[in-house]
C-alpha cells in the first residue's frame, strides 16, 4: 500500500471519539474510583533532608478514632525489598536503590517514613500529624558540584553512584588540529513534569481468591505488575491491573514509586480496599524530579567553523536514590549530545552524583532538553568567537542527508545510536525562512526592551524497543477490537490505533474499539514512554490488522462458497464481486471455534530506535532593567516520518514547546542549604499560563519516513520539547548581545538582570 493511498492515515480526524468523555465530566481518573468499605491512606514524610531516624512514636496516632493501621519500615517484614531499576539496570547501582519506607537513614525531605490508613483522608492526616519523629540531623549534600559534607550511603565508597564515558574518535588528535578552543560551562535547572493530576492508587485484596485488584498503574503496567507481585510474593496473574484515565504523564507518572508497594501492601494487611491520592505538596517533593545537569565543555574547531573535537564533563544530580530509570538520563545526554552535527572526535565523562534532594527520573525529552541546550549554546559562543552567524556554523557542520543511515558512534538506552533518516539542513532552512530570522533580527527600538532570535537544532530518539504487542480481533458485534500493552496518557493513543487498524481492515475508525494498558489484555507489554507507542504499538497493530483482514476474507470465502480472490472488505462486511455480502457480525457469529481464530496477536520488535529531528527559532523580548523575558513567538520545523494524525502531532509539538518554555524561563525546584524544598506549591513553582506561552508556529517537513518500520513512523511525543530550551537560551543571549552570558536555565529575572549588568560592565 502506497502512502498516498491511505484513507485514514495522515488525514485529520475531527471530533476524535476519545475526547468526548472528557468534555462532559465523564473521564474516569484514579480519584473517581471508589470501592465499598474503602479506607484512605496518608503518607508521613520526612521533614529532614538528611538524618538518622531513631524512632517513630505511633501510639497516640493509633489511638485516634477511625485509624485502621499504621505501617513503618519495621512492619514491612524482616527482608524488605528495594524498588528495582527498570531501564538499563547495573548491579553497581544496587546500594543506591530506595526502599518503600525509610529505615535508619533518611535522605530527602518528603521521603516516606510511615503509612497511615484510616476511615477518611482527613483522619489519616490528623493521625500522621500525631506521630513523633525522633531523628538526628546530618549535614545535607545539596550541590552535586561541591565536596559533600557527608556520605549519603555509608556502605558505598562515595556519593558518586556511577561514572561512565561515551564518545568516539581520537580526541587528542582532533584538539591538536583545532585552530580555536572554546570553553563553556552550562547548567540546567532541576524541574519536572508536574502533571495537572497528581498520582494516586486504589488497591483491594480478595483473600479467598488471593486476587489483588490495583487501580491507578499507568505508563508501564506490565513492569509494575511484575515488581509488585515479586515484592508481595504473589503470582503475577493474581494481580488485576486497571489503568484509569490519566491527567498527564510526561514520564513522571506511572513509574514504580514507594506508594505503589505501600498501598497494595496495606490493603492486603488490613483486608479492606485502600486508596491514596497524592496532594500537590506531596507530588512536588515525592514524584521524580529531573533535568539538573552541569556541563563543562571544551570545543575544538577550525577558523572556518568546522567542528573537530568536543570534550565534556557532565555531572548529573541524581537526588537521594536511584529510581526506576537508573542513570539513563545522563546516558541519553551523553549519547545524544553531538546532535545533528559531525564531530571528528567526542568524549563525554559522566558522573552520577547522589544528593539529599528528591530522587530523579525522566521527564519528557530526558537528557535531551539539557544536552541540546548545552550544545546549541556552545555553538553560538563558538560562532561569535570566529565571527560567523549562528545559522552558518550549523550549516557548515550538519550531517548531510546522503550520509544516512549515520552511525554516530555513541550509545543511548543500551543500543548504538544510528540515525535512520533525516534532512537536517532542510529543517534549519525551513525554520529560518518561516521565521524571517534574518529580516526581523534586532528590529526593536534602541533604549527599550531588546529583542533577540535564537536557533535550536535537534535530533530526537524515538520508538525504544525491544517490542510492543497488539491483538486485533473481530467482536461479535462486527466491531474490530484492538488491544495493546501501550498505555493512554492523554496523548491520542486511541485515535492513532483506531486509524491504523481502520486502514488495514477497511472499516471506519469509529468501528474500531481500542483497549489499552490493562495487563490482562496481552501477556507482555512495554508501555508508553520514549515516544514509542506509535512506532511499536502502531506497527504491531498494523501488521496484526492486515493479517486479520486476510483471515476474515478466508473465513468468508468458505461461508459464501467462493474464493478469497473474489472477496474484499467493505465497511461492516465482506463483499463478493457478484454483490453478495456477509456482514462482519454474521461472520463472527458463525465462526468455527476449531478454525483459524478471528484474532491476531503481533509483537512488533525493533532493534534500533528511529530518530526524528527538527529546528526551532525563538523570538524573545528582554527587559534588561527588570530581567524579564517575554517569549514572543516560536517556530518549529520538524520531521517525524509518516504522520498518522496531523492534529495530534501538532498538539504534541505545541504542548512540548510550552513545557520547554517553563523549563527555560520559569520552572525550578529551589532548595536551601539544609535541603529543604522552598517552593512546594503551584503558587511558588511557576508553570506557563495562557498569556505567557506565545503563538507556536509549526511545520511538518514530512520527507524522512523511518526505514525501520512498515508505517515509516517516528515518535512525536518529545520532539516539540527538546529544541525549544536551546532556542530560547540563544535568543536571550542574542538580545543581551553577549553570547557567553547565558550559562544556565531557567532564565529567571534575577539571573537575566545579572547578565544584563555584566553586559553593561563589559561595554
Amino acid at each position: 500500500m502506497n502512502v498516498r493511498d491511505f484513507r485514514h492515515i495522515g488525514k485529520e480526524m475531527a471530533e476524535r471519539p476519545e475526547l468526548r468523555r472528557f468534555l462532559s465530566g465523564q473521564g474516569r481518573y484514579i480519584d473517581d474510583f471508589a470501592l465499598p468499605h474503602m479506607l484512605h491512606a496518608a503518607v508521613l514524610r520526612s521533614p529532614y533532608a538528611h538524618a538518622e531516624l531513631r524512632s517513630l512514636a505511633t501510639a497516640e496516632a493509633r489511638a485516634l478514632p477511625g485509624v485502621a493501621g499504621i505501617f513503618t519500615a519495621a512492619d514491612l517484614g524482616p527482608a524488605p525489598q528495594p524498588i528495582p531499576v527498570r531501564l538499563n539496570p547495573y548491579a553497581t547501582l544496587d546500594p543506591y536503590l530506595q526502599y518503600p519506607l525509610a529505615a535508619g537513614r533518611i535522605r530527602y525531605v518528603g521521603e516516606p517514613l510511615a503509612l497511615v490508613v484510616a476511615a477518611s483522608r482527613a483522619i489519616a492526616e490528623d493521625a500522621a500529624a500525631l506521630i513523633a519523629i525522633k531523628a538526628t540531623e546530618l549535614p545535607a549534600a545539596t550541590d552535586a558540584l561541591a565536596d559533600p559534607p557527608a556520605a549519603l550511603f555509608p556502605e558505598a565508597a562515595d556519593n558518586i553512584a556511577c561514572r561512565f564515558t561515551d564518545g568516539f574518535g581520537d580526541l587528542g588528535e582532533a584538539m591538536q588540529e583545532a585552530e580555536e578552543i572554546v570553553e563553556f560551562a552550562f547548567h540546567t535547572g532541576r524541574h519536572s513534569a508536574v502533571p495537572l493530576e497528581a498520582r494516586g492508587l486504589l488497591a483491594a485484596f480478595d483473600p479467598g481468591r488471593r486476587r489483588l485488584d490495583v487501580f491507578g498503574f499507568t505508563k508501564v503496567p506490565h513492569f509494575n505488575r511484575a515488581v509488585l507481585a515479586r515484592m508481595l510474593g504473589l503470582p503475577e496473574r493474581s494481580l488485576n491491573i486497571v489503568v484509569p484515565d490519566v491527567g498527564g504523564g510526561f514520564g513522571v507518572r506511572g513509574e514504580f514509586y514507594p506508594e505503589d508497594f505501600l498501598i497494595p501492601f496495606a490493603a492486603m494487611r488490613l483486608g479492606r480496599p485502600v486508596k491514596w491520592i497524592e496532594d500537590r505538596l506531596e507530588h512536588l517533593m515525592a514524584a521524580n524530579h529531573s533535568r539538573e545537569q552541569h556541563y563543562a565543555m571544551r570545543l575544538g574547531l577550525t577558523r572556518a567553523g568546522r567542528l573537530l573535537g568536543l570534550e565534556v564533563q557532565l555531572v548529573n544530580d541524581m537526588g537521594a536514590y536511584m529510581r526506576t530509570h537508573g542513570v539513563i538520563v545522563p546516558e541519553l545526554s551523553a549519547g545524544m549530545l553531538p546532535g545533528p552535527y559531525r564531530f571528528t572526535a567526542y568524549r563525554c565523562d559522566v558522573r552520577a552524583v547522589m544528593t539529599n534532594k528528591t530522587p530523579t527520573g525522566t521527564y519528557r525529552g530526558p537528557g535531551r532538553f539539557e544536552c541540546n541546550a548545552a550544545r546549541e549554546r556552545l555553538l553560538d559562543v563558538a560562532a561569535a568567537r570566529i565571527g560567523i552567524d549562528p545559522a552558518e556554523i550549523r550549516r557548515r557542520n550538519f550531517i548531510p542527508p546522503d550520509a544516512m543511515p549515520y552511525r554516530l558512534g555513541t550509545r543511548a538506552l543500551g543500543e548504538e545510536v544510528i540515525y535512520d533518516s533525516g534532512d537536517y539542513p532542510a529543517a534549519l532552512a525551513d525554520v529560518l525562512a518561516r521565521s524571517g530570522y534574518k529580516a526581523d533580527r534586532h528590529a526593536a527600538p534602541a533604549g527599550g526592551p531588546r529583542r533577540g532570535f535564537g536557533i535550536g537544532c535537534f535530533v530526537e530518539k524515538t520508538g525504544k524497543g525491544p517490542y510492543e504487542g497488539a491483538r486485533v480481533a473481530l467482536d461479535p458485534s462486527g466491531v474490530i477490537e484492538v488491544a495493546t500493552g501501550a498505555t493512554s496518557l492523554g496523548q491520542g493513543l486511541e485515535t492513532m490505533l483506531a486509524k491504523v487498524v481502520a486502514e488495514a481492515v477497511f472499516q471506519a475508525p469509529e468501528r474500531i474499539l481500542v483497549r489499552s494498558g490493562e495487563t490482562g489484555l496481552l501477556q507482555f507489554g512495554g508501555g508508553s514512554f520514549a515516544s514509542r507507542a506509535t512506532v511499536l504499538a502502531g506497527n504491531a497493530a498494523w501488521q496484526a490488522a492486515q493479517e486479520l483482514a486476510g483471515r476474515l476474507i478466508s473465513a468468508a470465502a468458505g461461508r459464501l462458497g467462493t474464493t478469497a480472490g473474489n472477496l474484499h472488505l467493505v465497511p461492516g462486511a465482506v463483499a463478493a464481486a457478484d454483490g453478495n455480502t456477509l456482514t462482519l457480525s454474521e461472520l463472527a457469529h458463525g465462526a468455527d471455534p476449531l478454525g483459524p481464530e478471528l484474532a491476531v496477536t503481533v509483537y512488533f520488535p525493533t532493534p534500533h530506535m528511529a530518530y526524528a529531528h527538527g529546528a526551532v527559532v525563538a523570538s524573545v523580548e528582554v527587559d534588561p532593567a527588570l530581567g524579564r523575558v517575554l517569549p514572543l513567538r516560536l517556530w518549529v520545523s520538524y520531521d517525524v516520518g509518516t504522520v498518522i494524525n496531523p492534529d495530534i502531532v501538532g498538539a504534541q509539538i505545541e504542548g512540548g514547546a510550552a513545557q520547554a518554555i517553563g523549563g527555560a524561563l520559569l520552572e525550578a525546584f529551589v532548595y536551601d542549604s539544609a535541603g529543604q524544598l522552598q517552593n512546594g506549591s503551584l503558587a511558588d513553582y511557576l508553570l506557563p499560563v495562557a498569556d505567557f506561552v506565545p503563538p507556536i508556529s509549526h511545520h511538518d517537513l514530512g520527507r524522512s519516513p523511518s526505514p525501520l518500520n512498515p508505517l515509516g513512523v517516528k515518535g512525536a511525543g518529545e520532539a516539540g520539547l527538546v529544541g525549544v530550551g536551546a532556542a530560547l537560551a540563544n535568543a536571550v543571549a542574542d538580545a543581551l548581545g553577549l553570547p557567553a552570558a547565558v550559562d544556565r536555565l531557567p532564565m529567571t529575572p534575577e539571573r537575566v538582570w545579572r547578565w544584563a549588568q555584566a553586559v553593561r560592565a563589559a561595554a
Partner: protein
Amino acid sequence: MTEPSASPRPIRVSVNGVDHERTVEPRLLLSDFLRHDLGLTGTHVGCEHGVCGACTVAFDDQPVRSCLMFAVQADGHRIGTIEGMADGETLHPLQMAFWELSGLQCGFCTPGFLITARDFLARNPDPSEPEVREALSGNLCRCTGYQSIVAAVLEAARRLRQAPPARFGKS
C-alpha cells in the same frame, strides 16, 4: 456570636438545577463535597490551593475555585458543574468547539477551562485573542500549550454570538 463547632451541619445546595440536602463536616471542601458526596467527579482537583483552576465551578453563576471553599459555604446557593453544561446529549457550543479543535489532551484541566470560559464569554461575547489568553491565565494546562484552547474559545465565541447560551442543567 456562636462558637465555632466541628460537628456536622445540614446544608441544602442546588447543583445543576437539582436540590441536594446533606449533613457535612465543616472542614469538608466544596470540591470534595461535589466529587465524593454527590458523585459529580467531573470537577477535578489539581492543587487544592487555588492556583490550577481545575476545580472551577459556577457559584451563583460566578466562577469560583471549589477547593478554596467549604461545602457549608454553599448552603442555600446554586452550583453549576461540568456535568450540567451540556443540554442533554447536545454539547454546549464551548464543549463542541473544544472537541472539534482538540482543545484538550488528557482532559483533566478541561472542566475548569470550560466553566471559566463560559463565564468569560457571557461577559465578553466578542473577545480578542489577548483577552482570551488573559481570561484563561488563571487555569493551568500541562498538555496543550494553550494554542488549541485559545482557538476553541474564540471559535465558541463566534458561534455563541449567533445562538444564546443555555443555563446549567434544568432551568
